[in-house]
């Protein structure tokens, strides 16, 4: 799941000062689950905007919408129509950055602003807490590390064991909240009876899958360019 946090209210409000008819669009997928961008947050942000602009003596029209997923054309089409039909001046999306881009690509002259800061691919650890689990590097190497990713979960992205900042299983960057991933990998491999795997040096990672060659795309031949 993609995790995101609300931008400071004032920052989002600042984007909107020069617009009159504003649509706030939520996403029913990841940002609903991480309690940042679902229907309830749309309503709260919209109410906040109406109150804040009202106190500034500005009577803007703040409209609300929430779609099932902002990263698929079929789901965002109704939003595109609304923007046209209801003469929307600006859109704020509280989907992840994907939603911002996806709408921006399709909204012609209408500006789109992010309401969230997209942070990471993560998992819900307990109610109200999410943690990063994957970096989307394009070449998953967790088979070598007991299923635990040093790329995403090591503060320094080290691939061959911990640095000197590992103490009592914690990472020096934030010992209270961050486990040393290499401690986790060690413990995991020990439980799996595979500690010997640590004798193998992992070769320098080929980062081309993560960033090289421009924007990454994925094609599924069996459905791509269907007539």
């Amino acid at each position, binding site marked *: 799941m993609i995790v995101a946090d609300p931008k*400071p*209210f*004032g920052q989002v409000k600042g984007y909107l000062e020069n617009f009159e008819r504003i649509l706030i669009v939520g996403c*029913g*997928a990841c940002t*609903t*689950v991480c*309690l940042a961008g*679902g*229907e*309830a*947050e749309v*309503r*709260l942000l919209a*109410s*906040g*905007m*109406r*109150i*804040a602009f*009202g*106190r500034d003596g500005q009577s803007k029209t703040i409209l609300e919408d*929430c779609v*099932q997923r902002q990263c698929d054309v079929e789901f965002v089409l109704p939003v595109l129509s609304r923007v046209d039909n209801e003469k929307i001046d600006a859109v704020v999306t509280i989907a992840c950055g994907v939603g911002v881009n996806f709408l921006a690509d399709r909204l012609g002259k209408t500006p789109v602003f992010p309401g969230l800061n997209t942070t990471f691919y993560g998992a*819900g650890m307990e*109610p109200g807490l999410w943690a990063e689990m994957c970096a989307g590097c394009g070449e998953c190497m967790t088979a070598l590390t007991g299923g635990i990713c040093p790329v995403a979960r090591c503060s320094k992205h080290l691939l061959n064991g911990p640095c000197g900042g590992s103490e009592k299983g914690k990472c020096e960057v934030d010992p209270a909240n961050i486990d040393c991933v290499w401690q986790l990998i060690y413990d995991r491999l020990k439980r799996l009876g595979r500690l010997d795997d640590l004798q193998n040096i992992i070769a320098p990672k080929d980062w081309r899958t993560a960033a090289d060659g421009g924007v990454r795309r994925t094609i599924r031949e069996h459905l791509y360019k269907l007539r």
Partner: protein
Amino acid sequence: MDKESPQISSGDVLSTCSAACPVHTDTREYVQRLSRGDYEGALDVLLEVNPFPSVCGRICHHPCESECRRRAIDEAVSLRMLKRFVVENTKEYRIARRKKPADRKAGTVAVIGSGPSGLTAALDLTLRGYRVRVYEKDSKLGGMLAHAIPRYRLPVEALAEDIEDILASGIEVKTNCRVGTDISFDELRSENEAILIAAGLSESHSLSIPGAESNGVFPGITFLWDIANAMPPEMGDRVLVVGGGNVAIDIARAAKRLGPSKVYLACLETREEMPAWKWETEEAEQEGIEVLNSWGPKAILTENNKVSGIDLKRCTSVFDDQHRFNPRYDESVTTRVEVDNVILAVGQKADLEFLTKTSVAIERGRLLCDRASMSTSERGVFACGEVMTGPGSAIQAIATGHEAARVIAHFLETGEKLKLPQRTITTIGELPAATAARAKRVDRVEVSLADPAERIRDFSPIEPGYSEAEALAESRRCLACASGAQLKFPEHCAGCLTCVRVCPFGVAQVRGTAVMPAQQCQTCGLCAAECPAAAIELSRFDTNRMKDTLRDIVKRQGTSRIARPLVVSYCCLNETTSRKFLWEQTDEEIRQSGIVRVMVPCVGRLSALDLITPFELGADKVAVIACAEKDCFYSGSEELLSRRVTRAKKFLDQIGVGQDNVQLFRTDGNAEECWPLIWEELK
């Protein structure tokens, strides 16, 4: 009217209380209305299916309570007492709401007997537009209610309230008119399209034992009848009542009030088998009545043609293998009780003499009738109440009255018999033990009966009604079963598990989308308040409607005309002890006070948006007044609310309103005294 009862349709899933009630009173709805201070609305719900709410508020055997799902947590909600409170506090409204039928239909019906079944049928038919005349052999209406239920249980005024209300519909009554003597049955037949025999079981069975006809032996019903009519029989100092049912208990307790020093009650049954309600037997014993279990009458002894005692023999079993009444005795074990009077309460029978020279079939002293079509052997002659069902309760008799009215109306419209469909009632089932274990125990509000020594002095009512505070407190014990959270917008649900994580009762689940099984949901509303997709709503508490009300109030007033600061005060409904703050506010009251009250059945269900919206609508401050500490019905609700308020404060800071403008308070003591102090502080 195809519905089986005005309040249920076939296919409805009923709460267990409503299912258990013979007339399927929408118990949950009237209790919820009461809890919101809408006593009049509660009365409407009651009267929709029961024309005798005053009577039932006093004497109903309350099967609703016996099936109340709260029993799984602690004790049943005291529903009969709540019903009594409603009728006792809506007397003027009850008179004002009376209606007469708009249209008259062709067709007249004669009803023989004015007990609960006869009058119920008469009312239903009158309201449908038929002309109904009720024939009552006595001077008073009400049948057994008027004559055989002692006044310490059912005061005359309570019965009178119901009967006056029923008669206001335009029913014609002929009292002191015994069918068969004052008017013949055939005459009735020639004058009416349909006849309803609702004659009840007005005579006592006798016993075929030596001495049963002696001076000083009274038939039970006659005994009660005489007392009700202020003609108590001459009695000695020691009395024995034979019988173990509710009538026997009534007789024994009534006898005790006439002054004898010793009253016994002897019955065939063991204590556990006694058909009398357990609580009534206990109350009888408190009043000094000695219950002799497992004894059958052998002979009544006389001296100088007066009762001097009774010989009893040991009853070894009352029912046979097929559960039929078939008592067996050990004749070798006997006992003798010296008494001056014996009163027989060993069953009742109908007085059907008026039918003897008619073609209406009677078999072994009982009216021959078909239960499914409420009909007798004669076309156009119907039956209801105890004459058809045998001994039963008032509310069962009322239910058969409704059924008879349906059948008769059908007959008058079509000329055909109507077979009432077999009812299959689906209920939401018992409260699962795992859910019950997590629910908060709340003591039932009990009233103390008068002291037994006081009680037996006369026929004054022994049970005080609830005070308003007591009724409101007790009404809030109702779990409002099956009116909890629902996934209203499944297409919005992301399966995020928030509902699962905040549910204090472990009820919410995600199976594809969120599921809150109605059988378990305790209606706390926390899932709805926290749902990030705003997909969950409560059927009992609609936040949108509340916001509309708020919007409307502020819009109607125009904020400039209202005293400032304008405070929206969300208040925990459960803390009120009177209607003072439950009445809808007038515009003037809001204008002058600057306080807009929004009563919420637990403020824990307010979402963050609910805390912000008032500012958008023109409010200056928001007060959230929760219950007193540890008072909340829902564990975890207090913490979640407090965190939501903290979140709202931060948000208000961000949007420039200032965090101090939303504040969380606790009720200290009673709401009526505490809340005005809070509002003053805010001002």
